């Protein structure tokens, strides 16, 4: 589906005018509220100050790992940061919760009912025993079937990896190259959870979590929060920094891998990507960077193909070639991705938008790309039951030439 049709307010553009996040990591001294506050203040500061009275609406993504505030988790954090009385809705779509919260914010502005909307997310995942944490890691699989077969997500993504590597005759080392790249990027990100670099040998020799995935092919469980401000074209004029949200696409699929048409592609990602490209009027060739959902290294490879960065079966070669490294043709996960930056489930999607905002406003520090014009974020819930893709571009982005190939590679 495309949001680019319609008249009146729906035809005007929507902008990110501020974005910030808490550090991701393990923080015994923080709570879900205090983390959200850190993200909120960071976003508010990046926007050059926001009067809470100007915020019309809020969407907060969280899965609710650990149980804590399962009901009314949204207002629990927005009231905490002083967004008093602002209508807030909690969005739950597993690991894509705040990617979808951002999409809800865009839709609220496009509907004309709101001019300034907060979209964010939060998760606390490290304040329980390892065993208790695992209870929560499989809650977005097909709980009555996949989980009862004995898998959490590592097992389901391992099944995808087994299928992919076999179908395309790709070696497991390709997965390790993804891990090495993302750790190299995350080491430059002060907000990243795992700020160390690693080698292909490290990744290959790590303990096997679920064959063929080693520990290095799996993201950590993290605490963290992220928040962005989404504004209508009119309201955006009063902010210094503006990044256009030029494309939004989303799609759902069966929750269980075994119920889907493919084990080597995430159909919802493909559908979401195509919709976002169409709305933005661009193709993958027009992107300067992407933040993709690499909860497991195989997920990043599948994203390359589902989002049209390469042909089917070519993702392993693309990762190994260095093309997606920070100095490559198409840098992917400059933030470190879920692998290194971390994966506080409810915060991840909004956190990707924070990275896009920083890159496009020149505030990405040691990992700043050279004058990027457009970037994409890709956020997946579960093993592919939900996916959401956003395309961002600088306000003054170079126009896309008519003769440029905007066709998505199939």
């Amino acid at each position, binding site marked *: 589906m495309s949001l680019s049709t319609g008249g009146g307010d729906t035809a005007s553009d929507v902008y990110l005018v501020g974005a910030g996040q808490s550090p991701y990591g393990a923080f015994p001294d923080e709570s879900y509220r205090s983390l959200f506050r850190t993200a909120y203040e960071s976003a508010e500061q990046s926007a050059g100050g926001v009067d809470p009275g100007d915020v019309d609406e809020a969407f907060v993504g969280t899965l609710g790992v650990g149980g804590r505030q399962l009901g009314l988790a949204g207002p629990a954090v927005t009231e905490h940061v002083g967004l008093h009385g602002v209508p807030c809705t909690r969005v739950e779509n597993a690991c894509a919760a705040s990617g979808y919260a951002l999409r809800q914010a865009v839709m609220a502005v496009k509907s004309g009912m709101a001019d300034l909307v907060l979209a964010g997310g939060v998760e606390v995942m490290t304040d329980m025993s390892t065993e208790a944490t695992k209870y929560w890691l499989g809650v977005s699989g*097909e709980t009555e079937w996949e989980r009862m077969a004995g898998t959490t997500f590592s097992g389901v993504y391992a099944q995808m990896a087994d299928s992919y590597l076999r179908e395309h005759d790709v070696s497991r080392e390709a997965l390790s190259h993804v891990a090495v790249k993302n750790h190299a990027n995350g080491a430059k990100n002060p907000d990243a959870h795992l700020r160390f670099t690693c080698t292909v040998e490290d990744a290959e020799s790590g303990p096997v979590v679920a064959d063929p995935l080693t520990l290095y092919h799996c993201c950590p469980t993290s605490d963290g929060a992220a928040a962005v401000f989404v504004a209508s074209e009119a309201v955006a004029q009063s902010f210094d920094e503006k990044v256009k949200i030029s494309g939004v696409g989303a799609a759902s699929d069966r929750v269980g891998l*075994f119920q889907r048409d493919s*084990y080597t592609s995430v159909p919802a990602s493909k559908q979401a990507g195509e919709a976002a490209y169409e709305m933005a009027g661009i193709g993958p060739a027009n992107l300067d960077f992407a933040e993709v959902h690499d909860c497991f290294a195989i997920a990043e490879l599948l994203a390359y193909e589902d989002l049209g960065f390469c042909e089917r079966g070519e993702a392993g070669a693309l990762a190994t070639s260095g093309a997606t490294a920070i100095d490559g043709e198409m840098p992917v996960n400059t933030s470190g991705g879920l692998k290194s930056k971390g994966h506080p489930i409810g915060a991840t999607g909004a956190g990707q938008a924070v990275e896009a905002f920083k890159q496009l406003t020149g505030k990405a520090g040691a990992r700043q790309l050279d004058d990027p014009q457009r970037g994409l974020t890709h956020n997946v819930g579960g093993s592919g039951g939900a996916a959401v893709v956003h395309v961002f571009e600088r306000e003054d982005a170079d126009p896309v030439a008519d003769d440029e190939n905007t066709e998505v590679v199939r």
Partner: protein
Amino acid sequence: MSGESQSVGVGIVGAGIYLPRYRIDADEIREAWGRFRASGVRSKAVAAADEDSLTMAADAATRALNATEVEAREIRCLAFGTTTPPLAEEDPTPRLGEFLGVPADATRRFLTGSTRAGTQALLTAVGTGALPALVVAADCPRGEPDSPEGHAAGAGAAAFVLTEGGATRLAEHAEYAVDYPGTRFREVGSDRVEGLGVSAYDRQAFVECVGGAVGELGEDADPDTVALHAPDGKLPYRATKVLGVDTDAIASVTPVHEFGDLGAASPLVALATALETGHERILTVGYGSGSGADALLFDGDSAAVERSEAESEQVTYAEYLRLRGELTGDPPAGGGAAVSVPSWRRTREARYRLVAGQCPECDALTYPPEGACRACHTLGEFERVALPRRGEVETVTTTSPGGAPPEFAQFGAQGGDFAVAIVAFERDGQRVSMPVQVVDTAPEAVAAGDTVEATIRRIYTQEGVTRYGTKVRLVGE
């Protein structure tokens, strides 16, 4: 009491034997404890971490039905005997019946509390007169790890389909009981059988009861083989004199030397083994402490038998302790993703018997059979169809206990890494897939393209309630 079998003409038409894959040699136990206290047991069968008397019963019963033309839905009586039911209170026969597809209105009988439960199940089924009958005995007794009972404890099951006119006719039966306290007992609340260990006294109880029951048979039994209860490899031979047979008549069919003490299943596994080898006059004698014995004389042609064919795998003593759960703690406290017992129950047809939904619009299969069609997305009413029990691995991973949901913590601690596959089943040209564990194999031995067959196993236990469902095991081409 004795008598001609009232329902003259009732006979066994098919039998099944199930023995778990794992074996431990007596030497392994001897090495661990410095001695081995189960005379005459050379090795024994060990149940996997996800097996119990009920899953073994389901497997043996499936095989018994396979050996006949009788369908599960035709069964009118289901009788199950075991000393090790999964729960101290709760009739396991409704669940066993649903594993197999036995109708809800069939007569059900559950016998327990004595190793006689196997032969009692057989006699009870015959007594109901409801035919065809399915009789199952399964056991996995447990004793203290250093006790004679613990050293002898094996695991196995046998099942029989009885019909009017079944080939192996039940000619006669009798029983005998007399008070002998302390020969073998299990205290309330305990899962360990014990005995006083007074050898001469135990022997006397056994010989008196076995001899008493056989002596009550109306005619001279004159069996060519004796399927005799065997708690160890020595005691049964004490009865040769009173039975009037040589040791070979017992030794040729007893499971005890290779598989250990099979409890209530012991004489029935021996009976099925005798059928397998074509014996024509088989005296079956069950014995239980207390003490009492049942004697059943079969004659006629041998019924067909299907036996579990899995290649056995030797385990070390440490692996044995793990498999039996002697060393594992309780599963961790609860958390997310709980599947309630009621919601579990409503899917049992799919879980036990692989019932899928066939779309009336496009014929595609959907598993589980609920919601919209997986292929054309029509939200209608599926036709419910049973998938074949054999399928093909599409993709597989090996999950370490660290990567599994904590509900599987105990299973992982007992059985180690396990394989989880997505398996495709095909029916009339339509394929449908489901995620399942692959059991009874080293997980790394499983690969896409492998053929597997469904088996019922324990999934996990929460709030004291064990969920059972389908897993698969590799089958040879």
